């Protein structure tokens, strides 16, 4: 149905796509696999007309085509469901859909078509609601409905399950199977290998902008697919036994109102993290993770005794004072939160270490020491950088994440709170960071990991709690929780209505 030959797309000196070939057949669910930065998104944008290739040709149903714009792609019958949703928060569902349709149809008629289609596919959606009120899963439904309303012959889906609960993902797979059954082709972009093996008929693997393999995923193991993606064997995490000690972080009925119009309120959150253990908080994005992190770090104050670090009530204390108690924090957003994009690495070290790292004297900066510390972080965590002390923004996602994690770990914290430790980084960096967290706990620190990535959580956590609608479930030993139960809790099911885990011994 669709064939791309020799696609080349350069950004400056970087060839994001370097002679990529791809063929997707009718009724086929075709996986496009690759690490972050392998060129998947660029290729997809080229196919959808959002980017123009520097070289290469595209054939659609056998005919040579130039896809000049997304509108042209849609006219051909190519639809797209975006990873970072291309939605407008301030507009209604119907308006959002209208913006993706070529017609001059009235909003009313679009709304009735949305209702009909969402009923037919079991994707409930109210056309009159505003997007900012909707959950992540509902937002994805808008994208899917918008795409389906154009009756596309090829549907491109970019990382569709990364924001869904396992149950929502199952629902999506059923929909995809049905669409493929109707003879539509689906180009499915992901880095989740189990999904690919379960769902996809064929897979194209990209690495550093080139196609390294075309395989039939059902005949491969996940490990083999991972090797193709990464180019080498992936090291498993080594667990080291540690005995859980005294609680270093305690939350006692922490409640916080939302700090912005569309924020999530935290309700009655209680949790304790002991020395030597990793506790993970699972949950779908936007269920209060950011708010919880801010309350833990002290970026937002709370009731004094709602947060205790090493027994000290710190709810009213700022982040610097919490750091002085031996706590360290790594937020989700690398650029703009954990690091200032256009400051150098040595200045970014100052950001979290100015109060604890001996980097100032009488209010003056000791730049030499900061540079030395930055160099130590880079050496310890194998941070690859252009130049001696470059701007944070010039590092790749994985290297910057290693830097901001390393910056905190070199302070030898007794408590580490980290939000999405390996979100959007390459496999090598993710393994390194996870191993570092495990090692830190083994040395007797308490580690709290907030993550949307269940694979990551199951890989490193000793205990798991689930956050939904700003409420936190009880933390259960990781070995006692099934994926299904975590999924139900993530979907916001009331803890009592979810069957208790089998007794763990």
């Amino acid at each position, binding site marked *: 149905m669709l064939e791309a030959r020799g696609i080349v797309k350069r950004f400056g000196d970087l060839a994001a796509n370097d002679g990529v070939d791809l063929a997707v057949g009718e009724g086929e669910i075709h996986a496009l696999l690759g690490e972050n930065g392998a060129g998947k998104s660029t290729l997809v944008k080229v196919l959808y007309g959002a980017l123009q290739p520097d070289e290469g040709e595209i054939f659609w149903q056998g005919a040579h085509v130039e896809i000049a714009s997304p509108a042209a792609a849609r006219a051909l019958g190519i639809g797209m469901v975006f990873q970072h949703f291309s939605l407008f*928060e301030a507009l209604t569902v119907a308006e959002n859909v*209208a913006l993706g349709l070529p017609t001059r149809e009235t909003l009313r008629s679009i709304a009735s078509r949305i209702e009909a289609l969402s009923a037919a596919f079991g994707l409930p959606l109210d056309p009159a609601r505003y997007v900012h009120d909707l959950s992540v899963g509902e937002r994805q439904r808008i994208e899917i409905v918008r795409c389906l309303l154009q009756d596309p012959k090829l549907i491109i889906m970019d990382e569709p399950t990364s924001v869904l609960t396992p149950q929502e993902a199952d629902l999506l797979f059923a929909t995809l199977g049905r669409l493929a059954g109707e003879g539509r082709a689906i180009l499915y972009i992901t880095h989740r290998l189990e999904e690919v093996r379960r769902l996809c008929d064929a897979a194209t693997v990209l690495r550093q902008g080139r196609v390294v393999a075309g395989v039939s995923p059902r005949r491969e193991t996940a490990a083999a697919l991972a090797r193709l993606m990464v180019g080498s064997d992936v090291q498993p995490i080594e667990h080291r036994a540690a005995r859980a000690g005294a609680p270093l972080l305690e939350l006692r009925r922490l409640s916080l109102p939302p700090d912005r119009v569309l924020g999530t309120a935290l309700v009655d959150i209680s949790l304790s993290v002991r020395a030597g253990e990793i506790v993970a908080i699972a949950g779908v994005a936007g269920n209060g993770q950011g708010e919880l992190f801010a309350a833990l770090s002290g970026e937002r104050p709370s009731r004094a005794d709602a947060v205790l670090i090493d027994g000290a009530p710190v709810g009213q204390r700022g982040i610097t004072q919490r750091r002085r108690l031996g706590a360290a924090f790594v937020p989700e957003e690398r650029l703009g939160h954990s690091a200032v994009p256009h400051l150098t690495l040595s200045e970014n070290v100052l950001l979290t270490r100015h109060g604890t790292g001996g980097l100032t004297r009488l209010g003056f900066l000791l730049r030499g020491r900061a540079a030395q510390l930055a160099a130590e972080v880079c050496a310890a965590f194998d941070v690859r950088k252009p130049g001696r002390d470059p701007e944070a923004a010039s590092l790749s996602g994985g290297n910057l994440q290693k830097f901001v994690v390393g910056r905190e770990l070199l302070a030898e914290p007794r408590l580490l709170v980290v939000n999405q430790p390996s979100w959007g980084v390459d496999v090598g960096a993710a393994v390194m960071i996870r191993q570092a967290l495990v090692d830190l706990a083994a040395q007797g620190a308490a580690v709290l990991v907030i993550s949307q990535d269940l694979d990551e959580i199951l890989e490193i956590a000793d205990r798991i709690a689930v956050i939904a609608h700003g409420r936190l479930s009880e933390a259960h030993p990781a070995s006692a929780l099934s994926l299904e139960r975590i999924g139900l809790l993530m979907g916001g099911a009331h803890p009592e209505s979810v069957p208790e885990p089998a007794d763990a011994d």
Partner: protein
Amino acid sequence: MLLEPLLLTIITAATPLLVAALGELVVERSGVLNLGVEGMMVMGASCGFVVAILTGSSILGALAGIGAGMALAAVFALMTLGFAANQVASGLALTIFGLGLSGLIGADFVGARRDPAPKLHLAGLSDLPFVGPILFGEDGFVYASVALLLGVSWFLWRTRTGLMLRAIGDNPISAHALGHQVLRVRLLAILFGGGCAGLAGAYLSLGYTPFWVRGMTAGRGWIALALVVFSSWIPWRLALGAYLFGAVTILQLYAQGYGLGVPSQLMSALPYLATILVLVAISRSHGRGAGPASLGTPFVPDH
């Protein structure tokens, strides 16, 4: 009757604010903050007056004012869309540039006088007591401002292009991903805003005070910007705000005329103080995030 001339002057004082602010509202709805309203307005006043004197036509003068505002807006668009320059600084540059250039253009026309733009006269209707002069006896600019108000409301909420414009102001990245021409829409919005500011300025020198003085806008462009914030980016609230400000301006003039023993400078400062008060009150109830989400952020498409 005192009320009738009072209302008439309030309407004339409010009209330039309304017109300029409506243009800026559309610009800001597309996600662009053009702080150069004052500069575009004063250019409209000067060019409008000069052309009206030279041709003897208020209509040609108004068109020249629109053209001057749009020309300046085009410079702003080149800066902020073409070069992705800082919008705040570019807007300030536009104001400084416009104040200077309008002075150069109008230099030879200081002191020139002409009759103000004619008022509408509909036999019968305009002669009705009280409502006649107010509803049917205004000049063309006032009717144009009302038409503009209705037109902008209709455009933003009843047309597909208006929907696209609001979407771009909310999230240009998504709009671009869907294939909408972010920069083109913003360019057109900026030009429209410039035309409105120019028209508002032309009204000052052709209708409100029928002569030209250097810097005669006296901060009205800035007040128009504040009105957009006050309106929460909704046109009918903008009209409310503009007439409110017209009232403040006129009442302080009346108060000065009656000599209430208050220093005239304090009365003259009232509209500016009122602007600050209004900004504080509205920001307090809405918070800073009430405007279009992408307001003031440059957008550079990847090619």
